[in-house]
């Protein structure tokens, strides 16, 4: 890992990060900031940030608020829960439709991300080797796939033809290889020192050995960030679930969210884990929403760290 760090920074937008840290202190030639302009800028950004944070805060607060706090607020959202209870989470997570959807989504995310990484890395590796047979036409196909998406109906027909309707595989296979991620990974592989490949070839290593022993260990950073991107998109998958999943006992989280939170279908006591008193509908809804958001909030700092390193922007430079 430590050896890849410098090459990563140089290969990507390392130049920009250094120039940015240089400008972090005001250069001599720049005039003193006008306090009024500074205030307006600061307020504008503060409002934007508040608009992002307040909804999160409020749904978390409502999900842990007790019945009395919600009643006091007129049955609506809560900003500051006076009484705190985790009963909404307890009922939602102790079996029933939400628990099942969560397990399904976790399974799809884990299996999908692994398959995606293996196939994406494999394809990127083929396309990254200079003078590899067939790589040039394949690269054009990958680029074309970034620009144009196939229509809804034709995609549906292919998935149906493959017998994947109402199967969890319909949520994985059609989105398993993302063309953009192939291009990012290929760019990363191409930036690895070529001498490594030459010496591996001299030692008689096959292309598979080179991939598993040299390329992949040096590419942990890009594998991590692309893996996280895949994971987020599998966890969020809604479009394909809506199109292909028919039976409600196969629903992933996104469809549960749509039914109970967006469409506000009443959650019955028999649909979730048994508790003596059913928590308020609003708390249940917010608990489901929080459960859907938390995994993203957890992985977000890891993805975010890589923006600074510019793993993705590296591909833009071309």
């Amino acid at each position, binding site marked *: 890992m430590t050896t890849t760090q410098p090459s990563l920074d140089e290969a990507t937008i390392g130049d920009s990060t250094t120039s*940015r840290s*240089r400008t972090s202190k005001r250069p001599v030639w720049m005039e003193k900031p006008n306090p009024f302009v500074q205030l307006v800028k600061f307020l504008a950004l503060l409002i934007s940030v508040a608009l992002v944070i307040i909804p999160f805060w409020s749904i978390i607060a409502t999900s842990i608020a007790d019945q009395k706090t919600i009643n006091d607020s007129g*049955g609506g959202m809560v900003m500051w829960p006076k009484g705190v209870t985790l009963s909404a989470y307890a009922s939602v997570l102790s079996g029933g439709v939400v628990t099942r959807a969560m397990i399904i989504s976790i399974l799809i995310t884990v299996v999908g991300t692994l398959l995606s990484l293996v196939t994406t890395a494999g394809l990127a590796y083929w396309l990254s080797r200079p003078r590899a*047979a067939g790589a040039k036409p394949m*690269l054009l196909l990958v*680029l074309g796939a970034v620009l144009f998406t196939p229509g809804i109906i034709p995609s549906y*027909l292919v998935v149906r033809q493959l017998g994947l309707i109402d199967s969890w595989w319909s949520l994985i296979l059609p989105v398993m290889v993302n063309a953009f991620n192939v291009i990012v990974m290929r760019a990363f592989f191409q930036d690895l020192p070529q001498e490594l490949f030459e010496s591996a070839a001299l030692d008689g290593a096959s292309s598979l050995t080179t991939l598993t022993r040299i390329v992949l260990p040096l590419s942990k950073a890009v594998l991590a960030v692309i893996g996280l991107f895949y994971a987020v998109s599998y966890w969020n998958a*809604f479009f394909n679930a809506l199109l292909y999943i028919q039976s409600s006992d196969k629903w992933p989280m996104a469809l549960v969210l749509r039914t109970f939170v967006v469409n506000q279908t009443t959650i019955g006591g028999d649909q979730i884990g048994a508790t003596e008193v059913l928590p308020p509908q609003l708390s249940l809804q917010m608990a489901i929403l929080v459960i859907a958001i938390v995994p993203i909030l957890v992985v977000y700092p890891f993805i*975010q760290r890589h923006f600074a390193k510019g793993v993705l922007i590296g591909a*833009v430079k071309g």
Partner: protein
Amino acid sequence: MSNRELSSVASGGRLLAAPDADTADARSTGRARRGGTGSRWSRDKLLIGIGLPGAIALILFQYVPLLGNVIAFQDYQPYLGITGSDWVGFENFAAMFEDPKFYTALYNTLILTVIQTVLVFPIPLFIALLLNSLAGERLKRLLQSILYLPHFLSWVIVVSLFQQMLGNAGMLNTFLVQNGLPMFQVIGVPELFKALLTTQAIWKDAGWGTIIFLAAISRIDQEMYEAAAVDGAGPWKRMWNITLPSLKGLFILLLILRLGNSLSVGFEQIILQQGPVGLPASEVLDTYVFNNGILSQEWGTSAAVGLAKTVVGIGLVIGANKLAHLFGERGVYEK
């Protein structure tokens, strides 16, 4: 797909470079190895095998569906399949132009396309300029992290959040009612639906959109600013005469790439909120294809609408690229 916007951008940058590098590769191959193509294929057998699963998945789900578009010219019956269904020429397209629902969808789509291109598209540039003008590096990073976050939430989550904030029982209205003020209904009001969609789109992706502009701004030569300041240009003049002109090419590139998908105005976002608003205010081309094709089984007509939409998208990209060349810009690809 989550990172659609950035992905198109990145591919754009890549599209410019990749073909050149490839032809250079191919030329040196020609000179270096005169071995037959057959020996190259057998030499790279294992390498191709490693890449093949990914290649098959990509072709199967990106290119094979393109062939399925032929049902736009058929009276497609699922039990007969593509080979068994009757060919009807352009009848589906004629039916499309006679369907009043199609015109509703087209009208809504075009309005949203204009709003999203004129109003929503430049906002990331403003935020990027604002962020860039802040001195504190730590503060800037923190703000960026917070503003990027909504991009990673799915539309289901974003729509839920908006309902909880702006719905009739949401935070805003609870607050208004408790303070004896009249309710402000937003969710489920047809007249405000397009404004709502626009606000949601800005909330979700405007912050993320800044990432590409910030990267481009950080690559502008700092000495230009210094020289301009020495010559007496103030901050606004420097932004107007250095920053914005430096970003022009990128801005045009992004705009062209956007056009290719400009008729896709947010399927997930709209389908989730169509119920209470009603079709007249909310139907767009993509939801029309879904509602009439997948739900009502009118395969031929909806495939025709989908195909027409794709063709118009490709046409817009090619046309806009030509226009960019006329104005001396690089565009997405060279002539």
